């Protein structure tokens, strides 16, 4: 069935929405767990998320999902309404996480066009049991579970986001309170009742209304008593007890009203219309209005964020690029030459400003901060800590670093593997850490930063580090040694762990050790053209560095012209640019040119010679020298002139050319504002080239 619908936009939206909700849910549970208590906003949020999932999955006919969401919703409804004390935070989190995992699994199934056939019955039962035990502990189990369930379900429709506290209780009461004669300040006493009542219910009206402001109300209360209409879940006995506690109480008339009293109720409510607008919705309209309001607010979730198909973004980017060219074609049209067109120029300037702004915006749309990817790791660390009985803290640095959407998709899996590996293989068991004199709490650091034209993501642990001898031994066993051991440097040995089929962990655990993890890391990172390196120190920890290159990332580039060609050098690698003096230039017997810069002798790479470009500027003193540095290697690039600096979107060279051969020193190409293409130079490779 689901495969039949796999392309339906509804389903797509459902999948997308639900996975986002689940992510949010996970985050709030994690936060709550860290704080080891569920705050009211958190409970509310979880409740709302569950409610939405329930609604949308029953709409999409995924009944198992709906049932599970319903059970969780019940649980959180209870937590929210009754605020039971001494909730076992851990077991609650575990339970909810299990539910989250179940939903995730089903979503994946649905995504792949399979039937969402997981059986949630067991889990639901456990949630029910948990709820039941909570109620028992709280001593409020006055209703049979089934009844309670039905009741709860009915109520959900009234809960709106902005007013999460509202209860829509079943029992309607009419109370008339008479105070003792001569007790004075009846209005204040009445107010006290109302004030106390707020803890029990928020659905009430009373008469006279203006008890505080109007002194005459005292008279009315004295004569007619203080009338209260209210709705609550509390039983008659409870309400009676409540009112009996009132001081100076002379007489109390408390009656339970039937539904037939509705009109009176509504009428009373209508009287209050002025001051507390939200409280007196007459029953029918409340139901629909709230329902609608809730649906709206829930379905949008984050109103400030919408999700867009990446292909559409690409298209948009191309179109904007085209528009920039078209703009240049209009404003610099040869037909305009020599004409005095003040108004046209003014309009053209405006157009140019808007197009360039548009271009910048479109370029930035694709960039997504790493924060969600990083936060996913929290969950992994938490789960593994529990299972492996380790105490590990995940530190996240630089999660605001923005990365292209494509890249995020590619690095999420590798990161997960790395964190798992660090936790499972890296961090020692608590006793071991103790004997080594390390803090018993291990630390895994996840750090992202922009470095030059790359994004560097570091996964660092303070665990036992890599064991060189063991790696070599294992590599020997698996026949992975490609060179004599003695000749291998330390880092070469460490990098053996990235080979397929390598695993040093004797025991295969649930989380890692099948010898595929690291291999997946390299594969995924290489797919986006990145590199993985590892460094380690015995007993101090291991550091894995993912260097993700500039594919589609936006970089600041310095444009330089050589002949008719334009080259872009990532600004981050440019140290300085200058026009050389003839006296600084040296030539060695092999005709290699060098230049003295601040006492350093640096090689000169003539771009026109290197890439065989026709140009008139051949003398070094007529052109410009751009000094670039990358990985501690410095060289000087000689070009005709500098054109300026701008942000560019890096595009890969066409596949055809990539297949043909790798061109030394070229990292990709980019489109300039006028639609022409500039080649992006890879400073590191150029420096190596010599």
């Amino acid at each position, binding site marked *: 069935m689901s495969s039949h619908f796999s392309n339906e936009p509804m389903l797509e939206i459902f999948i997308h929405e639900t996975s986002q909700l689940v992510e949010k849910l996970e985050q709030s549970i994690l936060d709550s767990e860290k704080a080891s208590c569920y705050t009211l906003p958190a409970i509310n949020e979880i409740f709302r998320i569950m409610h939405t999932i329930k609604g949308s999955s029953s709409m999409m006919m995924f009944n198992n999902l709906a049932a599970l969401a319903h059970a969780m919703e019940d649980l959180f409804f209870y937590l929210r309404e009754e605020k039971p004390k001494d909730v076992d935070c851990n077991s609650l989190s575990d339970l909810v996480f299990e539910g989250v995992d179940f939903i995730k699994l089903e979503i994946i199934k649905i995504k792949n066009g399979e039937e969402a056939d997981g059986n949630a019955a067991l889990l639901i039962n456990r949630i029910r049991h948990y709820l039941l035990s909570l109620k028992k502990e709280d001593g409020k189990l006055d209703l049979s579970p089934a009844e309670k369930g039905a009741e709860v379900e009915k109520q959900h429709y009234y809960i709106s986001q902005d007013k999460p506290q509202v209860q829509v209780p079943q029992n309607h009461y009419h109370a008339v309170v008479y105070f003792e004669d001569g007790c004075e300040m009846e209005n204040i006493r009445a107010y006290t009742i109302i004030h106390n009542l707020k803890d029990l219910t928020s659905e009430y009206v009373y008469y006279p209304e203006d008890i505080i402001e109007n002194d005459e109300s005292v008279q009315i209360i004295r004569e007619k008593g203080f009338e209260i209409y209210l709705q609550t879940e509390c039983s008659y006995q409870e309400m009676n007890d409540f009112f009996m506690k009132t001081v100076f109480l002379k007489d109390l008339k408390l009656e339970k009203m039937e539904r037939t009293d509705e009109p009176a109720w509504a009428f009373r409510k209508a009287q209050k219309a002025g001051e507390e607008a939200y409280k007196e919705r007459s029953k029918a309209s409340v139901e629909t209005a709230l329902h609608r309001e809730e649906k709206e607010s829930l379905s949008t979730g984050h109103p400030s964020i919408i999700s867009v198909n990446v292909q559409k973004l690409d298209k948009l980017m191309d179109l904007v690029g*085209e528009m920039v060219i078209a703009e240049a074609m209009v404003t610099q049209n040869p037909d305009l030459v020599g004409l005095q067109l003040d108004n046209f120029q003014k309009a053209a300037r405006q157009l140019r400003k808007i197009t360039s702004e548009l271009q910048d915006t479109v370029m930035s749309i694709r960039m997504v901060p790493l924060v969600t990817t990083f936060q996913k790791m929290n969950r992994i660390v938490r789960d593994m800590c529990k299972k492996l009985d380790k105490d590990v803290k995940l530190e996240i640095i630089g999660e605001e670093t923005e990365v292209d959407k494509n890249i995020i998709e590619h690095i999420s899996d590798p990161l997960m593997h790395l964190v798992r590996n660090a936790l499972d293989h890296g961090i020692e068991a608590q006793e071991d850490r103790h004997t080594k004199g390390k803090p018993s709490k291990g630390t895994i650091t996840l750090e992202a930063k922009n470095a030059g034209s790359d994004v560097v993501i570091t996964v660092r642990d303070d665990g036992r580090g890599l064991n060189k001898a063991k790696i070599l031994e294992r590599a020997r066993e698996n026949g992975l040694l490609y060179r004599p051991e003695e000749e291998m440097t330390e880092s070469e040995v460490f990098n053996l762990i990235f080979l397929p089929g390598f695993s040093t962990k004797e025991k295969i655990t649930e989380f890692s050790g099948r010898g595929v993890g690291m291999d997946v890391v390299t594969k995924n990172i290489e797919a986006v053209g990145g590199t993985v390196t590892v460094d380690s120190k015995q007993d101090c920890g291991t550091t894995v560095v993912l260097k993700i290159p500039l594919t589609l990332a936006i970089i600041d580039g310095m444009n330089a012209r050589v002949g008719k060609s334009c080259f872009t050098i990532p600004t981050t690698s440019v140290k300085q640019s200058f026009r050389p003096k003839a006296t600084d230039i040296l030539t060695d017997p092999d005709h290699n040119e060098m230049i003295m810069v601040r006492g350093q002798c640096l090689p000169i790479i003539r771009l026109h010679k290197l890439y065989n470009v026709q140009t008139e500027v051949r003398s070094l003193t007529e052109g410009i020298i751009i000094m670039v540095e990358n990985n501690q290697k410095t060289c000087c690039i000689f070009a005709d002139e500098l054109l300026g600096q701008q942000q560019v979107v890096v595009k890969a*060279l066409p*596949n055809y*050319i990539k297949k043909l051969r790798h*061109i030394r020193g070229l990292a990709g190409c980019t489109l300039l504002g006028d639609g022409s293409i500039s080649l992006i130079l890879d400073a590191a490779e150029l420096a190596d080239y010599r």
Partner: protein
Amino acid sequence: MADKLVQDIYDQEEDTQKGKYLTFSLGNELYGIEIKHVTEIVGLQPITEVPELPDYIKGIMNLRGKIIPLMDVRLRFKKPFRDYNDRTCVIVIDIDDLSIGLIVDSVSEVISIADSEIVPPPELNKVGNRYIKGIGKVGNEVKLLLDCDKLLLEDEANCLTSIIE
């Protein structure tokens, strides 16, 4: 049922493209290229040269934000280079996600050539007509039908020699 209908539509579309060739000229010869490979035909635009490539790859071009390589078919076939003029066209073809623009002297028309009118190229020697899939007869003329896959993919050997040179 619906699936079948969709399939039919696809088949029809496939049918309309089948047996149709876009013909272009290169000097005196007329070549044909299967229409299903052709994405579009554009006039020549500024070319950005890319270093270290075989001479028949003239460089790259910005096709509405998409960057595609350009191959001069004349040079590919070891014919003398001719300056580009107003009639010079770029045929953008798309094969297995590889987009490439072919620079040709001029584009003439789209014609249908029935399979029965296509004869295999004469087997002169193995090296000679690697890129010709067949020869189509249209009236009195013959068109050389190009094998796009080979045109694009089978040049590693060539590439190597050009580097050695």
